[in-house]
């Protein structure tokens, strides 16, 4: 039933990541609004999950005829959904031309994830802070039903300022949800400033460890490290895993990298062309 492609080599994954970045830039340019910074920082994470880690089937997404044993992915930082849309379309969940209607009325691709509208989306998010709780519910159901599926949830590093994340983090460890793996997109920035200057959530690893989580830290743009961390998370028993993925906000487009201003701004057509050229020839 599954559509994972274990045969994909690092080079091919990197190529897919490049194509995904170009999709993101193009989509947000055409849409005229959106969030490039946090979409670009999580590209390798989302690509690794859908192309190498998760068991899923684009022919039987969430819904009445779904494959109930599929792994689930919850995009808790919902504003980065262009990344997920690009990957879902590449996997065949919906036609590619949908991408160019992002954020337009009736397009099927809203500005933030909607599980009712868009094939492959597992949870409606966009209001930050809710995704880990939702993922916990999925993981609890999996344990209750003695199913083997795993639940992956991607959090923003600004997002973890939300109290609900910590409410949820206690549930995950209290119930020993080792079928859940969270990834923190540690790009160091939120909207108004760096996370350090706003609420300073550091030290990250120690915080999650003290909440009962297994913590691994990786370079979030390195497929090899990401895949090893996902593999490791499957071996961890009796507790959930948090992968702290060190990333660069706006990764791949030099003028967007580490720039607060590119959190939620659409590139002009000129900037879009420049960005695509850069991604093609880094």
């Amino acid at each position, binding site marked *: 039933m599954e559509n994972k492609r274990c045969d994909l080599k690092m080079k091919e994954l990197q190529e897919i990541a490049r194509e995904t970045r170009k999709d993101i830039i193009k989509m947000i340019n055409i849409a005229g609004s959106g969030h490039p910074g946090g979409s670009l920082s999580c590209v390798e994470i989302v690509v690794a999950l859908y192309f190498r880690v998760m068991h899923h089937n684009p022919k039987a997404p*969430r819904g009445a005829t779904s494959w*109930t044993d599929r792994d689930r992915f*919850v995009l808790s930082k919902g504003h980065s959904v262009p990344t997920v849309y690009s990957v879902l379309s590449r996997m065949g969940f919906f036609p590619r031309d949908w991408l160019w209607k992002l954020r337009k009325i009736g397009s099927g691709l809203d500005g933030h994830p*909607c*599980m*009712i509208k868009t094939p492959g989306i*597992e*949870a*409606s*998010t*966009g*209001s930050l*802070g*809710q*995704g880990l*709780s*939702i*993922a*916990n*519910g*999925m*993981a*609890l*159901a*999996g344990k*209750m*039903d003695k199913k083997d599926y795993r639940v992956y949830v991607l959090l923003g590093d600004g997002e973890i300022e939300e*109290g*609900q994340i910590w*409410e*949820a983090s*206690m*549930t995950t460890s209290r*119930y020993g949800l080792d079928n859940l793996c969270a990834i923190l997109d540690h790009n160091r920035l939120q909207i108004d400033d760096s996370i350090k200057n706003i609420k300073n959530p550091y030290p990250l690893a120690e915080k999650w460890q003290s909440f009962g989580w297994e913590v691994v830290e990786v370079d979030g743009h390195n497929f090899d490290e990401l895949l090893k961390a996902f593999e490791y998370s499957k071996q961890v028993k009796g507790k959930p895993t948090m992968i702290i993925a060190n990333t660069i906000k706006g990764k791949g487009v030099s003028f967007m990298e580490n720039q607060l201003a590119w959190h939620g701004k659409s590139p002009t057509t000129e900037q879009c062309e420049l960005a695509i050229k850069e991604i093609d020839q880094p």
Partner: protein
Amino acid sequence: MKLLSLRDVYGETLVELGRSNPNIVVLDADLAFSTKTHLFKEFFPDRFFDLGLAEADMMSTAAGLASCGKIVFASTFAIFATGRAYEQIRLSINYSQLSVKIVATHAGLATGADGYSHQALEDIALMRVLPNMQVIAPCDTEQVSSIIKTIAQIDGPFYVRLPKISLPKIYEHFEFQPGCSVVLREGNDITIGAIGPMVAEALEAHNILKSKGISARIIDFVSVKPIDETAIKKACIETKAFITCEDHSVIGGLGDAVAKVILEYKPIPHFRVGVQDTFSESGDHTDLYNKYGLMANHIANYAIKLLDS
């Protein structure tokens, strides 16, 4: 008059459902002994999760469970369920059309001594404004058991509001259907529509009015959303005025739901009995109902005034 606990019957009905349906999961937020979900926990510890003092977390967790096919009942006090976790309900449950049944207790002034912080006076308004959400306010134990069994079989989100106080039995037998209302007394001078604890008050008002030669139709609007528009329209033609009664703010609750239908169909004088856009306080439930104008004699007086005007 014998008074029965709606909350007890909620807990007992959950146990009954749990026996026949392995898909039922129950969540609470450290108030299981008050909401009575602890009864379910005793029988089905593997399908009960106490998520602690984390109402927002509870609602989104309910969404995750429901997205995997569980029928989830989530309970806490009405103000915390709808107020603290409003946006979680709005997005992760309601927008996502998931089968989460929010059954909240300690609704209204009738919560009593705990005071304003614990008296949900705006929960109906908050839930009613959400598209898709059905809002139900039972008035006795017969209704509770039928409602809980029925909504467990209907896909999608529900909000059920229960009072803390015990109430007299109104029904010998009751079968809930979404959008239903029940005419409890026929009458042709004035219609009194009520929900929850106010149904018993309305019935008493009926007797007071009868002794004064006024015939009041009493309708139990157990389904606040969808509301039984036919019953309201009929009352607009067959009676001369309308009074709505709720232990809730007059803004956004049953009164406003009924007013919309009256206004759009055939305006007749309408008065909304309820908490009149003001803060409440601690006190015995009857003292509070007296002070805030929610007793049968208040309803009867409003009826006489409205018919005189």
